[in-house]
C-alpha cells in the first residue's frame, strides 16, 4: 500500500461534503414528504401505491452504493492506495443499508397488493442475490480486516458482483412476461401529480446516500488515523 498522509484526498472531500449533503437531504426530504401526502390516490391500488415513492428510490441508492464500491475497488487496483479501498468499504456498507430497506419495503407493498410477502420471481430473486453478494463482501472484510491481499480480493469481488445489476434491472424483460413484479418505472408510468413525488424520492434517496457515504468515509479515515497512531505508539513503547 502506498504511504499516506494523515488526511487523504478522499477524506478531505468527504469532510467537506457532510454538511452540504445533510442540508440538501433535509430540504429534499421535506419537499418529498409534502408531495407524497399531496399526491392523488391511484385508482387501482389506492393509498398503497404511495409505497412506489419510497421503494424504487431505495433500489437506486443501493445500486449507487454497489457501483461506488466497484469503482473504489477498481481505482484501488489501479493506484494501490488504501484510501480507495476505504471508500469502497464505506460505499458497500451504505449500499447494503439501502439494499436492506429496498428488500424490506418491497414485501410490504407485495403483501398489500399481491396478498403475499414474497415470490421467487426472477427480479426478486436477483435482488436478493445482489444484496447477499454485498453482505458477503462486508462479512469477508470484517473477518479479515487490514491486509493488502484482502483489499485486492474485495475489489475484484465487488467488480464481479456489479454484473448482477444490469441483469436485475432487465430481469422483467428477461422473464418474458412471467414476472409478477411491476415493470421498470418510466415517465409514462405515472398519472398526473405522481411524477414529482417519485422524482423527489429518487433525489432525496441519492442525496441521503451521498451524505451517509461522506459521513462513513470520514469515520473510516479517523479510525485509520487512530490505528496508525496506536501502531506508532506501540512501536515507540517497544523501542524504549
Amino acid at each position, binding site marked *: 500500500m502506498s504511504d499516506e498522509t494523515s488526511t487523504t484526498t478522499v477524506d478531505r472531500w468527504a469532510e467537506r461534503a457532510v454538511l452540504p449533503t445533510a442540508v440538501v437531504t433535509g430540504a429534499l426530504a421535506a419537499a418529498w414528504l409534502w408531495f407524497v401526502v399531496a399526491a392523488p390516490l391511484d385508482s387501482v391500488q389506492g393509498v398503497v401505491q404511495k*409505497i412506489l415513492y*419510497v421503494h424504487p428510490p431505495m433500489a437506486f441508492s443501493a445500486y449507487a452504493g454497489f457501483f461506488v464500491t466497484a469503482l473504489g475497488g477498481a481505482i484501488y487496483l489501479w493506484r494501490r492506495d488504501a484510501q480507495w479501498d476505504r471508500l469502497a468499504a464505506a460505499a458497500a456498507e451504505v449500499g447494503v*443499508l439501502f439494499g436492506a430497506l429496498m428488500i424490506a419495503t418491497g414485501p410490504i407493498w407485495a403483501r398489500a397488493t399481491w396478498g403475499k410477502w414474497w415470490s421467487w420471481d426472477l427480479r426478486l430473486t436477483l435482488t436478493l442475490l445482489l444484496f447477499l453478494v454485498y453482505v458477503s463482501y462486508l462479512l469477508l472484510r470484517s473477518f479479515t480486516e487490514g491486509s493488502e491481499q484482502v483489499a485486492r480480493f474485495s475489489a475484484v469481488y465487488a467488480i464481479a458482483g456489479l454484473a448482477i445489476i444490469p441483469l436485475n434491472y432487465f430481469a422483467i424483460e428477461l422473464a418474458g412476461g412471467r414476472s409478477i413484479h411491476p415493470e421498470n418505472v418510466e415517465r409514462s408510468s405515472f398519472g398526473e401529480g405522481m411524477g414529482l413525488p417519485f422524482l423527489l424520492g429518487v433525489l432525496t434517496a441519492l442525496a441521503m446516500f451521498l451524505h451517509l457515504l461522506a459521513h462513513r468515509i470520514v469515520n473510516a479515515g479517523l479510525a485509520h488515523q*487512530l490505528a496508525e497512531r496506536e501502531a506508532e505508539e506501540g512501536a515507540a513503547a517497544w523501542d524504549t
Partner: protein
Amino acid sequence: VGYVIACYGLVLGTLLAYSLHLTLAQKALRKSLSPHGNQIPVDKTSRSEV
C-alpha cells in the same frame, strides 16, 4: 394506510438511526484522537487563536 406508514416509518427511522450512529461514532473517534495532538482539524478558530 398501515402498510404505507410502516414503509415510510421504517425507511426514515432506519436512515436517521444510522446517521445518528455515524455522528456518535465520529465524536468518539475524534475524542480518542484529540489528547495526542492537533492533527485533526476539528476547530480551526481555536487553533488560530492558539
